């Protein structure tokens, strides 16, 4: 046994699991199925029904709108409501309709194809009891709490996020070529305050009957890692809560599985996706989409950086952004600022007169390059 102990054990190992791009040849056979998406609000909130077509995988866009269709929602008690196409493929419904009725959706495409939904039964979504956030060492977790009831057991949450985006270097000055000099920026010309908006692709589902008294307590909506751009100053999230039927859950789960869970070591097989819409003329031709009706419950919360500090947001792409050490003097304003790539930042005073400006690159000071300067309508300042 001594000899065993004497052995110097050298292990050479380089195990690596890796992924490489995969581009199989898919028959070019055009695959174009109708896709229907929508949750129609019964309380008159503006809600959208999207009609589109599937596109090949290598297509540059993924939304191919189905235009000029006629979409009619009819109740079994005999009422009919026409949805209006406001943008290509987006049909808007904005009516207060009785929740106890059962509805059918009919779609007549411009090319004459006809589709219809299975009967739709509106579900009254219970309100969001609480929405909030908590911080831990990894970041901020946004959550909601709600309570299901006998009609509303399964929940689907979606959210839209908005936040203030600031450039690394702020400037209050602008070179005005009309007057040939630098002046203060007007509110419209402000490039130091922008807003970013994103709607989430995540599909969040939960069944309340899994929990005691059907209370879904502090359901995680999203997690923002510490230092993330979103809470560089002030962040807002609008959480929409929709109660859905069990068949809807099946659809969303397949959608979720087919998108999120494919390809890991133990991932399940992709599943066929269908929905509650079918073709009238050709019942076997695939249609994708699960349309629901009910009430959308929404809640918006804000998170300020001070609420979660220390946050330490730092975007490394701006680490080379500096304010020049040498000022640009008046006589060089036109040649320096005329192109627009260099911006004045801090004035150089000689007594009470401005004789020049310290400058920086436009990419370091102009947030409109990355975000929208328009404050969203809902935005509330602190």
């Amino acid at each position, binding site marked *: 046994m001594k000899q065993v102990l004497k052995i110097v054990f050298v292990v*050479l190992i*380089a195990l690596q*699991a890796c992924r490489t791009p995969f581009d*199989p040849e898919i028959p070019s056979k055009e695959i174009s199925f109708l896709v229907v998406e929508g949750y129609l609000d019964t309380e008159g909130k503006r809600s959208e029904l999207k009609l589109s077509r599937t596109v090949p995988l290598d297509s540059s866009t993924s939304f191919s709108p189905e235009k000029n269709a006629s979409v009619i929602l009819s109740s079994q008690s005999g009422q009919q409501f026409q949805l209006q196409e406001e943008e290509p493929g987006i049909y808007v419904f904005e009516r207060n309709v009785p929740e106890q009725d059962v509805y059918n959706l009919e779609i007549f495409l411009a090319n004459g194809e006809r589709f219809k939904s299975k009967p739709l039964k509106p579900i009254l979504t219970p309100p969001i009891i609480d929405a909030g956030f908590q911080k831990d060492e990894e970041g901020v977790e946004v959550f909601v709490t709600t309570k299901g009831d006998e009609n509303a057991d399964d929940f689907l949450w979606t959210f839209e996020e908005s936040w203030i985006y600031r450039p690394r270097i702020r400037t209050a000055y602008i070179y005005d070529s009309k007057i040939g000099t630098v002046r203060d920026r007007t509110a419209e010309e402000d490039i130091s305050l922008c807003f970013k908006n994103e709607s989430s692709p995540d599909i969040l589902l939960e069944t309340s009957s899994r929990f005691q008294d059907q209370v879904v307590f502090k359901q*995680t909506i999203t997690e923002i890692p510490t230092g993330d751009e979103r809470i560089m100053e002030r962040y807002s999230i609008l959480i929409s809560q929709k109660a859905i039927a069990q068949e809807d859950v099946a659809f969303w789960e397949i959608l979720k599985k087919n998108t999120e869970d494919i390809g890991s*070591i133990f991932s399940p097989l992709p599943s066929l996706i269908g929905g509650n819409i079918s073709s009238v003329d050709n019942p076997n031709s695939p249609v994708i989409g699960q349309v629901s009706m009910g009430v959308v419950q929404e809640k918006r919360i804000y998170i300020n950086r001070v609420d979660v500090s220390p946050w330490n947001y730092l975007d490394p792409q701006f680490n080379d952004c500096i304010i020049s050490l040498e000022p640009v003097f008046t006589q060089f304003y036109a040649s320096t600022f005329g192109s627009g790539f260099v911006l004045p930042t801090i004035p150089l005073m000689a007594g009470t007169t401005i004789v020049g400006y310290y400058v920086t690159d436009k990419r370091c000071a102009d947030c409109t390059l990355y975000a929208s300067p328009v404050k969203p309508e809902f935005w509330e300042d602190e």
Partner: protein
Amino acid sequence: MKKSLLAVLSFILLSVQVALAQEADRITGFFPGTSFTRFAELVEQQTSYTFYFKEADVKDLTVNLQANQDKLEDVLAVIFEKSDFKFTISRSKEVFISRGEKLQIEFPTDYFLRNTAGGGSVLQDEFVRNRRYTLGTPGPGTEAKIAGFITSLENQKPIEGAIVYEKESQRQTITNREGRYELILPKGNQTLLIQNIGGYTEQRLLDIQGDATLDITIGEGVFSLSEVVVRSGALSNVSRPEMGVQSLSVQQMKKLPTVMGEVDIIRGILTMPGVNTAGEASVGFNVRGGAADQNLILLGQNTLFNPSHLFGFFSAVNSDMVQGVDLYKAGIPASYGGRLSSVLQVTPKEGKKDKIGGSGGIGPMTSRLSLEGPIGKNTSFVVGSRLTYSDWLLDYIEERADLGASRAFFGDFNANLSTQLGEKDKLFVSGYYSKDRFQFDPDTVYSYSNLNYALTWTHYFNDQLELDLSVGRDEYEFDVQGEDNPLNSYLYGFSVKQSFVKAVFRHEKGDRHILTYGVHGIAYGLNPGKIDPFGPESIVIPDEVSPEKGLEASLFIGDEFEVNEQLTLSGGVRLNWFGNFGPQTLPEYAAGEPFFPENIVGENSYTSGELIKSYLGPELRFSGRYALNNWSSVKAGVNTMRQNIHLLSNSSVITPTDTWKLSDAFIKPQTGIQYALGYFRNMQNNAIEFSAEVYYRTMNNILDYRSGATLILNDRIEQDVLVTKGKAYGLELYLKKVTGKLNGSLAYTYSRSLMQTDPSEQKEQINRSEWYPSNFDQPHNVNLVLNYELSRRVNATLAGKYSTGRPVTLPVAKFEYGGSERVYFADRNSFRIPDYFRLDFSVNLEGNHKVNKPAHGSWSFGVYNILGRDNAYSVYYIPEGGKLQGYQLSIFAEPIPFISYNFRF
């Protein structure tokens, strides 16, 4: 270290064999009734010996034996054993055959015919076979009784049917099933010869003074064991009546290149034709187009429900504790049943009977240690354990890969005890425990364990009739502990436990019948899933799918009937009854309606022990062999099988969280039938074996799942299961060279495995109820193993595998939904991942064979996936920069070197 005589004996043998082997011109060949003249010619062709004899002397002498690397002296001793022929071999390799008197040439060359009583040369001291041992104590009488056991040096298995004889007095006996012999011999200097049929002849020079025990471990030696194993396989290739049976010894497995230095039985059988795997990191294997859960994996008498470690990278069986494996792909004997596709019989090791010894190994992932030896006179034990220290490796992987594995632990423990109770009874007790624990992320801990134990009593009523009676228990359970949030923390668990009793009688009736009959009963208890809150804050509601109980009873009888020399028939019937028992509350679906929630019209309650539903069906096993001549045969067979327990798995490979399900009121037993036909041929004196087999099989009531089916905590699984049919067919070609410096095998398989949703199924019809390829339908499969023995101590192995890529379901279109781009998948399994190809290389180095070394060590090293090919394990698509990018995931995408050290003491 204090050593007994026997310890010395068996130990020295290791080196003796090697020394002797180096110089001798060895004889290999199958001589079925060959005339001696022809035999001499053949030997002369093969070796440098020259024969001298009178033609007339030997005209009636025939040679009837099989030799494999045997010394000419041994072979001739056997040929002339009962005749008055004598032979003498000169140094210049001239062989003189004479009758009556031994021909005297100038000096003695034959070292064992001359009993050098007191001569004691220096050379002889080195050779255990030429050393004289004193047995017994002096007493009255002129004769003494010598008894003992003959066991194999390599695997410590008793050698049955070995001839033990004394050279001068010609007294002889044959060892019984336990390897025991007993012989009355004259006192004084004697030469005892032990002839293992077709193998080596071993000898002991004895000075018999009185009654004594002499256990002898006989020598295949370190290097030649596998040759012996292969040889017995060679005979059976052509002559055994069953077909579709593949055997592999641990020694053969050890030569194969490994992943991370772990000798793996399942990777070993993957080199066989007709066996493939859907995923590289999966020990779940598919036999002849059957699903992975259709393989019965037996460790001794115990069923292993999860044969894998470390989420499937390694098989759960410690190769040190195994003698060999037999895989029955067709021709499954009537005594086996319970799964549709195959039986993998892993034969556990029995402890050495002569002295305490052990073995172990150190590799990059695990260490192994086992200890074996006798306890008293009639009992031997072997215990072994294997533990991992894989965390460092996982840390390494995590830095570089998508596995995201954080922590993993596994270990297993085996213990076997075998004891002889008198002449006619033998007890064998075995136990196995394995445990796995791993995390993919810090919050979720997966763990699972196997626990198996069994007691087997073997009783010999007489020479014709024996009984094996086994009782035991198999348990498998897993749990998942989720702690990502104290409020939602949970503990989810599953378990399946079965107790079994099996009695098998083996009855030789006359010369031509071997009957096998018996009963087999299994009581199942299954907890299909249970979730509990974990921790005081958790608000998860406990939920439990009600436990399942089942009872299975089988009666079987089989007969192997040698009709004549050419034709052997083997047939059997197994009558299988399965009952599903309460307590249970089941919904009642409207008659003739599909199992939809809306079709529930009532509820039925069953009390504890009440029979809910039973199934009865016969299983037929039939195969026949017709020998065309001594070296080729044709075989055909039909098998029907039933399976009452099903693995619920939604992914293409076996995963650690797959659960089992018993047949019940709604889920019927799986049934299948297989037809097979084969041609078997041995060439070049059995040096080359060839076989070609074709098969066609159909399967009923196999399971597939409707889209979006949730298998976990599903009370009403029948609502998500699609009744599915399967069919598979294929051609398997196998060429194996068993001897020579260069040996190995080449297997080619063409096979298809297809499934179809039953057209009457109303829940969903996959691919419009057309036939679609199963997840493991890989039409072309080539396996190559080449082993080259550079020297007695060094051998190198090259292994290659090619197979068609497995089917996958690919996205073909995309659309926008729920705020993101989504994909639309094409028909189930209508595309394939790229073809698979891999080459592995390994070198095994045996240590030197100095007698006084405390441990016998060997090194293995090599490279897995030497070409570094990125074999796709799976493919998937993720949205990336607005475009949907496909990726293929490879698990072992680079050459992976490995090294391990194994030792024996």
